[in-house]
């Protein structure tokens, strides 16, 4: 099976570890981590990822800005993007989806839901 490369952009080390813990249940997964939007964008431009997971509230560059830049970018702009955030308002969800997010999860979310959503987006069948 070919590897699945996922970029996790999240400022909280606790949440990053939690997401990675859930993702490691995917066979052949390779995870890259970034703690803010700028670092996330740098890593995104250097590698081809199968999925990008983004938090919204982050220092330096927020998640929505990063999402928008990826979608307008020159390469791999159609990569699936999953937003995981504390922002539970419908308006925030609508905004992220209108910017091109493929999924929107609100914290706190169980690891199993993260895994299930990632599998759905990547078309992985159990």
């Amino acid at each position: 099976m070919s590897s699945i490369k996922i970029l996790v952009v999240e400022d909280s080390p606790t949440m990053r570890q939690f997401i990675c813990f859930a993702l490691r249940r995917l066979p052949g997964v390779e995870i890259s981590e970034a703690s803010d939007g700028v670092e996330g964008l740098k890593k995104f431009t250097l590698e081809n990822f199968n999925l990008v997971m983004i938090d919204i509230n982050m220092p330096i560059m927020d998640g929505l800005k990063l999402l928008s830049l990826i979608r307008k970018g020159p390469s791999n702009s159609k990569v699936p993007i999953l937003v995981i955030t504390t922002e539970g308002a419908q308006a925030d969800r609508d905004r992220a989806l209108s910017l091109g997010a493929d999924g929107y999860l609100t914290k706190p979310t169980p690891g199993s839901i993260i895994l299930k959503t990632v599998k759905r987006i990547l078309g992985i069948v159990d």
Partner: protein
Amino acid sequence: METPDGETPRTPDEREEKEEERKVFQRAQEFLQIFKKGAEFTQELLRINEKMRYQVVRLKEENQDLRRAIQPETAIQDLERRISELIREKEELLEKYAGIEQENQDFAQRYVEIEEENNNLANLYIASYQLHSTLDYREVLQIILEIIINLIGAEEFALLLRDEKKDKLLVVATEGISQDEIPPIAIGEGIIGKVAETGENYIRKDFASPETTEINNPLVCIPLKIKEYVIGVIVLYRLLRQKTQFAEVDYELFTLLAGHAATAIFSSRLYSESERRLSTFRGFIDLLTR
């Protein structure tokens, strides 16, 4: 012309008589022929009749053999017995199927429970791992805030630590509310002070958050304890809008925070204090040895 007896007729009467005799003879011949044919036909009929009789006897024998072979009552009984066996087998199979179905449901239920347990353990492991990943006091406080936001799902909360000299709880970190909004709280005063005094968790029965945050009416108050000594409290005022109720894991996180956050805070403060003293001693030693 000669008569049948070979004599030649002499007179017309004789000739006529002879002619008559000849005709009679001819008809006798024809009749004889017909009779012979009739006899042959009769012989043929008798032969066919004989064959038919033979066939009838054979068929009767065959019929008797078949009757003996079939024995209808026994055959029906056999079939009935077989049907009963098949019905019993079917019932057994249905019973087994129901058992397997039940087992399958039990497994599915167990899978869900294990999955939930796995999630809970992952939460607790990560929270514990992060709490003890540093000896920096500020980082420990930040990690506690992250756990409360990301793993519990609180929007407004505060962390208060006990001031030994004043015997009061002083706010050291907040999220969603200003630190200025929370005054020092005496041990034993109000809900928060009582929690610090008794060391018992407080969870408000009325889960709905009021419009405005009331400092002395928290949703949850968890004491931070080292053994039985309370070093501070975590006070939750409001949860994130999508968090409508506590899950089982939240109560476990409260318990974990009560112990692990307390030791992490205590260790990091101790370490910071030691570092500060060490730095002071080094300064003195440098002065003396210069």
